[in-house]
């Protein structure tokens, strides 16, 4: 019904021209790598090294703890100097492994067998993806192998690849598609094989014509893969919005995409899977957009996971005198950082530096019930009323108003003329509800 789009949504300034034409470059290894054991949704990895151990690049430092979990690998050769609490991008102090990088190491992977994908069973492909530590690279960091093995009571008919990249500033997926279309398509081939899916659609927002052209050019003749240009609108890359744009179907409230027969994977994750079966490289580095008007030299970089923000920003020429806010992720859903010792994680799509005047540090006015948030919300909630309830802790009423369907995209807070931090209120309400539930159980 809404071909290539969805209803509502917002149009923040894209700011992608800062980096959209910059080729991906490789950042040199920093002097130190810090690897939190919790970098993905699900159980954190189980520590498997001790202080003083020497690790080669690609060796595991933590092992998967259960099905919804993945291992963490050393992103550089060096020596484990400390295992303890370290600033995490989510604002907490989290168990992490500090590695002093060996300056004279060749930083090559240990020689390993890379099995040919066609000879592997579905289980073996899933296992290989888990062992490589691959997670969703779009930000949520959900273990990719879990999505490769959907529950058997649902048939998956379409694999959707998310190349929307609707967050302002971010261009890492854009550059991946434009520069490595073959790798993306090879990853798709492996996934279609593993999931026994006959059809694949790659959704790309229309503001990346070079990426669309590169993918179309590289399309293999033997697979049913189509490239779908999408309306440029936030949050086009949200899973449910993307599914509606591609299939015209709304995923039922509270249900997983697999109930409508689709699985969505991020472009970066697909490229990571391709690398697993091309070279055996586990997920130890990723493409990060480092951008913002508060940064001197914006760039698209291949960054070793565990690189501290301080080192990353320094490599990009440092920040301007007016720089005020450092965000991991995009400015709509990303997390502002209080400590630049926090490291780049597997799920870090970008690092954005805003100048003082670009931040939201302004007065908050009362809600004037203008209704703009209702016209922005992509899942048709009433953020105005939800916000009123959140402030007086009427969480049960919020449940009735479908708080659970809120995906914290921030569209409501973006348009709010009164600058009310609606997304923050909703996140806090979700946490309060979860605590209450845990307390009752």
């Amino acid at each position: 019904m809404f071909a290539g789009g969805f209803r509502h949504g917002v149009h923040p300034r894209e700011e992608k021209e800062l980096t959209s034409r910059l080729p991906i470059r490789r950042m040199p290894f920093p002097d130190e790598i810090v690897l939190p054991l919790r970098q993905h949704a699900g159980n954190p990895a189980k520590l498997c090294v001790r202080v003083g151990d020497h690790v080669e690049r690609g060796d595991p430092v933590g092992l998967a703890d259960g099905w919804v979990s993945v291992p963490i690998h050393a992103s550089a050769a060096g020596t484990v100097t400390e295992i303890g609490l370290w600033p995490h991008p989510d604002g907490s102090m989290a168990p992490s492994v500090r590695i002093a990088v060996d300056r004279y190491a060749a930083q090559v992977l240990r020689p390993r067998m890379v099995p040919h994908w066609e000879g592997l069973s579905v289980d073996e492909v899933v296992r290989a993806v888990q062992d490589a530590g691959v997670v969703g690279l779009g930000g949520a960091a959900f273990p990719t192998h879990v999505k490769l093995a959907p529950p058997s009571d649902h048939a998956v008919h379409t694999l959707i690849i998310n190349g929307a990249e609707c967050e302002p500033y971010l261009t890492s997926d854009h550059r991946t598609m434009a520069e490595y279309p073959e790798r993306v398509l090879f990853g798709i081939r492996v996934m279609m094989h593993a999931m026994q899916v006959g059809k694949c659609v790659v959704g790309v927002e229309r503001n990346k014509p070079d990426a669309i052209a590169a993918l179309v050019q590289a399309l293999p003749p033997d697979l049913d893969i189509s490239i779908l240009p999408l309306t440029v609108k936030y949050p086009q890359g949200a899973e449910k919005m993307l599914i509606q744009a591609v299939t015209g179907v709304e995923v039922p409230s509270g249900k997983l995409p697999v109930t409508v027969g689709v699985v969505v994977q991020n472009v970066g994750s697909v490229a990571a899977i391709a690398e697993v079966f091309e070279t055996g490289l586990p997920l130890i580095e990723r493409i990060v957009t480092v951008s913002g008007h508060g940064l001197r030299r914006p760039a698209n970089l291949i960054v070793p996971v565990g690189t501290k923000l301080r080192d990353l920003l320094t490599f990009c020429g440092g920040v301007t005198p007016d720089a005020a806010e450092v965000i991991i992720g995009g400015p709509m859903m990303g997390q502002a950082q209080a400590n630049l010792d926090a490291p780049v994680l597997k799920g870090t799509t970008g690092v954005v530096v805003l100048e003082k005047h670009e931040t939201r540090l302004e007065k908050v006015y009362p809600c004037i019930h203008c209704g703009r948030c209702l016209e922005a919300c992509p899942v048709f909630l009433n953020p105005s009323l939800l916000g009123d309830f959140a402030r007086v802790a009427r969480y049960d009423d919020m449940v009735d108003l479908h708080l659970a369907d809120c995906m914290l995209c921030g569209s409501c807070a973006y348009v709010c003329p009164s600058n009310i931090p609606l997304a923050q209120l909703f996140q806090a309400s979700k946490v309060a509800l979860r605590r209450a539930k845990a307390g009752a159980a």
Partner: protein
Amino acid sequence: MSAPLAPKLIVTASPHVRSQDSTPVIMWNVVGSLAPVIVAAAWFFGVSALLVVTAAALGALFTEHSIGRGGSLADGSAVITGLLLGLSLPPGLPLWMAFLGGAFGIGFGKLVWGGLGQNVFNPALVGRAFLQAAFPVAITTWPTVGGPFWALKGDLFAFPFTHPNPDAITSATPLGLLKFEGTGTNLAHLVMGNTGGSIGETAALVILAGGAFLAWKRYLNWRIPIGILLTVAVLSTVLHLLDAKRPDALFMLFSGGLMLGAVYMATDMVTSPVTNLGRWVFAAGIGVLVVVIRIWGGLPEGVMYAILFMNALVPFINRATQPRVFGTGRQGAA
């Protein structure tokens, strides 16, 4: 390692960027769009109009400043209330009454509810309803349009709590003429605005232009004025066809306070529904009530009470018109 990094970092919750429009920007744009209406009023009624509007605005600002939360003057909403109240009053109203109306409107129409965003009723109309109840004669004394600019109309400087001296030349409003004497008014006069009436309600075209500007900037929702005017037009056409003695649609649209009410009063975001469906319901309700009061009610004009009545229903309209949540209902049966 000493990198050239900011010493102090701002940490706020996402989203970290926002659109340009802010509540004060919206409010001050509404104020700005009222300027032509005030100029037109001064053209028709002379300096008296400016004095009454100023008195009402000062009353509103006085109360907001005295009991409002710190800094709430700057958001511009009290100015709007004062100006709209002033524009809805007769040009010869004693100034102390206008001041009192503004003060009452802000105090009891807004601040006792908890300030900006919390009130159920339009504060300007609360002020006007108060004046209507307290000074029924003064608020229905309509000085004639025209005359020298500096000529004072009515008894503007009547001392508070004395009876104003109604020695000025007065004339009935078009709606009053129709209701009480059964005579019509030339449509051209109605459209141009040189008829008797409240200060700001006669210049229909200027009000429409202001509304169009605000709708284009998305500072008011076009559904409400369009819905009201359409309802009034359709309903009065039907009634006119049934009984030709009843006024036709054009007379209904361009007489009295309908334009000012539909464009500026009913569209107050705080006291109108948040859903688009609700806005249509709200607008249709006002339109019906305006026609009913004008045709069958005891008063010649009904815009004020129509809007206040529908204001009271807004919470219920909002509840009844909640949007369908994504993935529920129509397609969410799975």
